[in-house]
């Protein structure tokens, strides 16, 4: 009997010591979502009541802890517009205007359902404290609570595919506890040796029937020069 109890305790201890924690899942999800540095091309489609309202193509250069630079490549009227994010600061450069304009990370991204930060900042691990609220054979459901007030959403419920530790769905909640957006991740593809969702669909609770879709066309892991992350460089 004593042996049985000891075994059960030992098994429980093993589970406790070696089970993946919520924070580890979040970190793994962040790591799987992107590289530390690299470049990607994406298409952003804004759909309202089933009709495509806006379609934007952009090139994104990013480097962890340094910044993210997005340059629009299409359509012609948006071409060469740039958005730069460095930590909590964000600028937009419009060709023909001499100086970059400061943006808020929480403003709507080019009139879509995304906030600027939704698209420019992929690193959740630093800003949220996670806990597993549900676990099934196929997925973890994490509750991520903001650790500071500088983030857009005070709570995020994330469903993570267990096998590949990839985000399947996110529900984004405001400080008042109301659901504001949902994000669905699909179309798992390999980019530079990493599997990650290629399609993200964001739905705004206030405009049901409208959605914004991001399609990652390609992503490469490559070395990025720190110097490009400068508002002054945007003009050049």
């Amino acid at each position, binding site marked *: 009997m004593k042996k049985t109890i000891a075994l059960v305790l030992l098994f429980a201890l093993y589970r406790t010591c070696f089970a993946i924690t919520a924070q580890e899942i979040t970190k793994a999800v962040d790591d799987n979502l992107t590289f530390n540095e690299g470049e990607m091309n994406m298409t952003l489609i804004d759909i309202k009541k089933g009709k495509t309202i806006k379609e934007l193509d952009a090139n994104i250069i990013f480097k962890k802890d340094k910044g993210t630079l997005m340059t629009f490549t299409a359509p012609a009227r948006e071409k060469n517009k740039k958005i730069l994010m460095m930590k909590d600061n964000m600028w937009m450069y419009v060709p023909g205007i001499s100086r970059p304009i400061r943006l808020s990370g*929480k403003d709507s991204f080019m009139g879509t359902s995304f906030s600027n930060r939704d698209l420019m900042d992929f690193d959740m691990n630093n800003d949220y404290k996670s806990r597993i609220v549900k676990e099934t054979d196929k997925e973890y459901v994490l509750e991520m609570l903001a650790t500071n007030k500088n983030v857009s*959403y005070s709570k995020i419920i994330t469903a993570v595919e267990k096998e590949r530790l990839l985000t399947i769905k996110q529900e984004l909640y*405001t*400080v008042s506890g109301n659901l504001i957006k949902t994000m669905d991740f699909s179309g798992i593809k390999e980019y530079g040796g990493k599997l990650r969702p290629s399609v993200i669909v964001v739905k705004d*609770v*206030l405009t049901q*029937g409208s959605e914004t879709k991001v399609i990652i066309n390609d992503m490469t892991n490559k070395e990025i020069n720190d110097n490009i992350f400068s508002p002054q460089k945007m003009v050049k």
Partner: protein
Amino acid sequence: MNIFSIFIISIKNMKRHLRRTILNIISVSISIGILFFFLGYYRGTYIVSMRESFLKYKTSHAQIQTELFNDKKIQDYVTKNTVFYESDKLISKILKNPKVISATTRLAGNGFAGNGQEKMIVQITGCNPETEKEVGIIDDFIKEGVFLDKQDGILIGKKTAELFNLKLGDICFIQAQTINNSPNILQLPVTGIYATGFYELDKNTVFVSLKSANALFDTQNAVNKIFMFFKDMEISMKVSAELRPVLDNGLTIKPWQEYAQGLLENEKSDKIFYSIFILILLFIGVSTITGTMYVNVYERVREIGMLRAMGWLQNEIFLLFLFESLCIGLAGSIFGLFIGGIPTFYLAVYGIDYSQAADMIAIPVFKLISKPAISDVLLCIVVGMVSTMLGGLLPAHKASKMIITDSLRTN
């Protein structure tokens, strides 16, 4: 002949030429009536009505806000630099000044309102329902439901309700950036629908309780404005100066004149236009009266010659016509004040609602009213009498100087 006898003769003369006298009095009274009406109408509608409406809707008599609050930067209405706390304490200090009638707090900011299908940009105004009811204009324009009460709810304009097909009790979504710049949403039932006829209010503004606004902007119990009303709008600068020492550091008080630059500019340009208009009116009035009197006297040259032949002195004739002119002027002015007084009284007591012009003039409540002053009455009497005197004395003077035989020969 003494002055009193000449005065009596002038009265008898007026009776003798009764038809002419009546026509002269009517002529004078029409001009004076128009003048009197217009002066009261201008003051009432353009100064009092417009100003009061604008102040009640937009600026109050004075506002307290942080020094960094910029009314033109709507996107920055709710930031750490533009909100302040413990407004209740401040209000109780303000109300100790006997010239302050009321004060109410607001927390206004930019955001979206929607029905869950669509959304649009609106100004979200959080207010204290009890004091706002007394001070603001919305309560007067509630078409359905009630003003905000203790329960959480939202007041929307008729145009917003139509646009989103929202009815009383339906859930309206409001979204805004919190003070920390995170998006936030509240779902509130529609408790009231108002219609002012003013687009800016009926479509672009929604009202919620201060509690809801604080929950939306995540500002605990902050406000970004205190609206105050004084005993009179004209004392706003003086009272603002008196209240300044009561304010905490970082707060400032601004009288309505600082917000209403546009209105004052408009008033200024309107004043020039209406001054010219009044001058033209005066000119027409004076020339009409003068012309009538001139003809009146000139037709009586023969009579003047007769009086002179009977031994009347030149200055006695002059006095006779002076009295006649003054009497006609006085009677015409009084009658004119009566004629002009009828529409003036109607506008002063009832007014004419002209809210359909609200969008055009960017003021929500617009009533055509009249506010006559004692100075208007005095001005009208002076204008009436001086005009008749001018009209009467010049030809009388000329006629009295004529050779008696020439005067008698005149037809």
